[in-house]
């Protein structure tokens, strides 16, 4: 295949970025792939439970239409529906492609793909590879992209962090500027189109289930350069994580999908060993309140219930923790189906969950919000595309488990041809690109220089800690308007104090201090979008819950939040949600069976 001169830059080498890279290379175009870590180490490896697709191998009458309904309903009707439908229709094909790429999915006795149950559905719809499905899917894309790398179609820039877009005089994206994380060298990457695939911003909350690379920094840079950021206030708090000093480690929903039961002792403060508490003295509060879905209610609901029982004094040992119990299942079965995640628990806590109930608590996990995109993954900046967790589409107000992997790949698969089409057909007119690359590199170098020179008394890691603490306290499970206001004031104070940091590293070679300072600034800006978006939205929907406004209010709030950057504060506007395919109905998982399942 003759080399085509068009070049597309992809920022981020997780599932979405690699999916796009593979498609673009296969179509014969060149890719520059920019990633802060070697792409095989991207955060997608942390996804555990599986990937959804209505393949219907269990004779349950599952279909993409039901997957579509579950996803829209689970997302509390905030998602624009056409791309969700398209994703659910593509999902079986995506799973089959991974099967062909050699992913060691768990199989049935007949040698077919096996499927497990996950939250927010009554069907076995989740294909899985042990309990490290994200790792396995990422590796298979990594392998395919490596093949394209050997053929010269993909050039990787691993250990480079994107700092900004390069925009021409017409506001069109013409590439980006990235920093080498060893030498701090800045480089402009010229591109006919840029695809953002940088994942979520969990580190804004300090400790979360996210990897240390998930700062949202590059996306925040796009936002500060004019990209619209949508539904930022919708942050998923996963019901089951393992609290730790350095992070909250995920305990996959697959633990409940395979039969795990959540409970607390009926007697508050019961100090007995959990194995000695008889069945009759345990409160299985999810099963009691949601008989049909039980422990597999959607994440926002499970999270709020767990949060509430702890608030009411039922937390294990009086602390913020509940039991997630697998001990009624045979150790062999658990090892086979959940080995990888049970190892993680045992490694970090020291108890073997095959014999001792796990102690878990909710932790910040996923951003439903992200860069605004249209149905072809195009942002509002011409030439700039987004895919995966960093875009806002698909999940609405709450994401269902095992829908993230499929949405990442879907986003990459849609963004790739859209970016190619754009690059092939764009007419540059009289837009001036003279010197724009040099100018942007110069602008970014000035920011680096000022950070390096800054020698104030403030400690950037302390500022980050304070940001994480107040965001976790006030902008997660339960939100109050006065506390959201106070949070924004605190963020403004932190932004002010940021200007007085010193980087405390005299050795600039491979320093973490300069990149962290750049990330922190961007996190602070995005934190305001999340906080103020939550303050404005006076209703409860999906992951966004306000006791002062406990009901979903479609009349006033069935709309997408759009934030645009200005120097003073984010400017908010709203656009209608496309609900043309499924009429919004009340979301209620407490009834015997969900209305979607006939």
């Amino acid at each position, binding site marked *: 295949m003759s080399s085509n001169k068009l070049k597309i830059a992809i920022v981020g080498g997780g599932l979405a970025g690699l999916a796009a890279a*593979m498609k673009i290379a*296969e179509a014969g175009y060149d890719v520059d792939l920019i990633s802060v*870590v*070697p792409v*095989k*180490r991207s*955060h997608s*490896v*942390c996804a555990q439970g599986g990937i959804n697709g209505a393949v219907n191998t269990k004779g349950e009458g599952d279909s993409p239409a039901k997957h579509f309904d579950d996803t829209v309903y689970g997302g509390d009707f905030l998602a624009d529906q056409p791309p969700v439908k398209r994703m659910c229709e593509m999902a079986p*094909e995506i799973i*089959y*492609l991974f*099967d*062909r*790429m*050699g992913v*060691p999915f*768990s*199989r049935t006795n007949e040698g*077919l*793909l*096996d499927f497990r149950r996950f939250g927010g559905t009554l069907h076995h719809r989740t294909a899985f*590879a*042990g309990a*490290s499905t994200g*790792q*396995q899917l990422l*590796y*298979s894309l990594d*392998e*395919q992209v*490596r*093949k394209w790398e*050997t053929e010269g179609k993909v050039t990787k820039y*691993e250990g480079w962090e994107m700092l900004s877009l390069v925009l021409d005089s017409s506001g069109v994206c013409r590439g980006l500027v990235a920093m080498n994380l*060893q030498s701090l060298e800045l480089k402009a990457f010229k591109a006919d189109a840029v695809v953002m695939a940088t994942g979520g911003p969990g580190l804004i909350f300090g400790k979360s289930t996210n*990897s*240390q*690379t998930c700062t949202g920094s590059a996306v925040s840079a796009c936002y500060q350069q004019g990209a619209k950021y949508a539904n930022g206030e919708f942050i998923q708090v996963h019901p089951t994580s393992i609290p*730790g*000093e*350095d992070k909250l480690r995920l305990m996959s929903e697959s633990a409940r999908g395979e039969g795990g039961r959540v409970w607390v002792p009926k007697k508050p403060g019961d100090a007995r060993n959990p194995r000695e508490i008889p069945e009759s003295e345990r409160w299985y509060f999810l099963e009691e309140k949601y008989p049909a879905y039980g422990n597999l209610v959607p994440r926002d609901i499970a999270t709020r219930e767990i949060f509430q029982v702890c608030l009411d004094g039922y937390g294990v040992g009086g602390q913020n923790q509940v039991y997630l119990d697998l001990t009624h299942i045979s*150790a062999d079965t658990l090892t*086979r189906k959940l080995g*990888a995640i049970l190892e*993680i628990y045992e*490694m*970090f806590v*020291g108890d*073997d969950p095959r*014999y001792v109930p796990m102690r878990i608590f909710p932790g910040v996990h996923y951003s439903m919000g992200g860069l605004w995109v249209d149905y072809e993954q195009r942002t509002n900046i011409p030439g700039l595309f987004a895919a995966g967790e960093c875009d806002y589409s698909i999940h609405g107000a709450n994401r269902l488990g095992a829908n993230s992997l499929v949405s990442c790949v879907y986003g990459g698969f849609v963004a790739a041809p859209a970016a190619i089409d754009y690059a092939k057909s764009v007419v540059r007119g009289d837009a001036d690109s003279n010197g724009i690359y040099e100018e942007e590199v110069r602008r970014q170098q000035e920011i680096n220089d000022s950070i390096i020179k800054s020698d104030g008394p403030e*400690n950037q890691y302390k500022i980050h800690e304070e940001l994480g603490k107040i965001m976790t306290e006030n902008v997660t499970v339960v939100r109050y308007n006065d506390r959201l206001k106070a949070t924004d004031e605190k963020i403004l104070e932190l932004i002010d104090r940021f200007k007085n940091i010193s980087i*405390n*590293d005299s*050795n600039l*070679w*491979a*320093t*973490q*201090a300069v990149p962290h300072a750049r990330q922190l600034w961007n996190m602070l800006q995005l934190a305001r979008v999340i906080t103020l978006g939550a303050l404005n939205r006076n209703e409860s929907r999906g992951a966004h819950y306000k006791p002062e406004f406990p009901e979903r209010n479609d009349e006033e709030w069935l709309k997408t939040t759009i934030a645009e950057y200005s120097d003073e504060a984010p400017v908010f506007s709203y656009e209608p949600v496309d609900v043309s395919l499924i009429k919004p109905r009340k979301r209620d998982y407490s009834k015997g069976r969900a209305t979607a399942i006939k």
Partner: protein
Amino acid sequence: MTAQNGYHEKKRLENPPATVKFKIQRRERKGAPVYWETFELQYRRNLNVISALMEIRKNPVTIEGKTTSPPVWDMSCLEQVCGICTMVIDGRVRQSCSALVDDLLLASGGDTITLQPMSKFPNVRDLKVDRSEMFEHLKRVHAWIELDGTYSLGPGPHIPNTLAQERYALSRCMTCGCCLEACPQYGEGKYIGPQAIAQARLFNMHPVGKTTMDDRLSGLTDEDGITSCGNAQNCVKVCPMNLPLTKALYETNRDITVRTLFGWLEE
């Protein structure tokens, strides 16, 4: 408590010290001299090496009270699944995220934990190394399935679950480099090492991958190929993902032998 079948209560640190010392091997940049610095932290339960390093980074003052540059290391997932934070801790190569301070103190009986970068890879700075050669190995052994295309072509071949599980065990390799650090033969280009050989095996086991087995094996028949394995079996002992590395080496060696003996029959 009565132990259930297979259940072992974990041994825990009973009398922790008031403070923990971290003795860190440092280097300003590639080729610069190595030096050591020691930092002291208040003991807390649930500390792991990464959270200790994060605390040191916040305020890097040595045990002598000297303000110094913050130690540099790599970290990402903190769940022992990305492999990036690998280093040598108390003489043993492993991930620093899953290295719990309590366990380390329990094992050593002391109050000091020693951190060093991996020695088989270029040392970028302090505890950070450059393992890009491991990804080059994967290119050499063609560690991928050759597809007709990524367009919709239906499901892959039927695969017995036993084979899927065997492949899964090899596919969990996170390219951390523990096996190469521990391998006496690996280094300076003398031997490609167990990591890449196990990945070759992973794809040779696949019904479609098998058809391009020769491409993979031909990368392993040179002087630095599989014959350089000294059978020390260190790799399998240090692998944090419990990959059956020696089995993969044995099976690949068998495949190469068969190919050498009978390959001409197919031509």
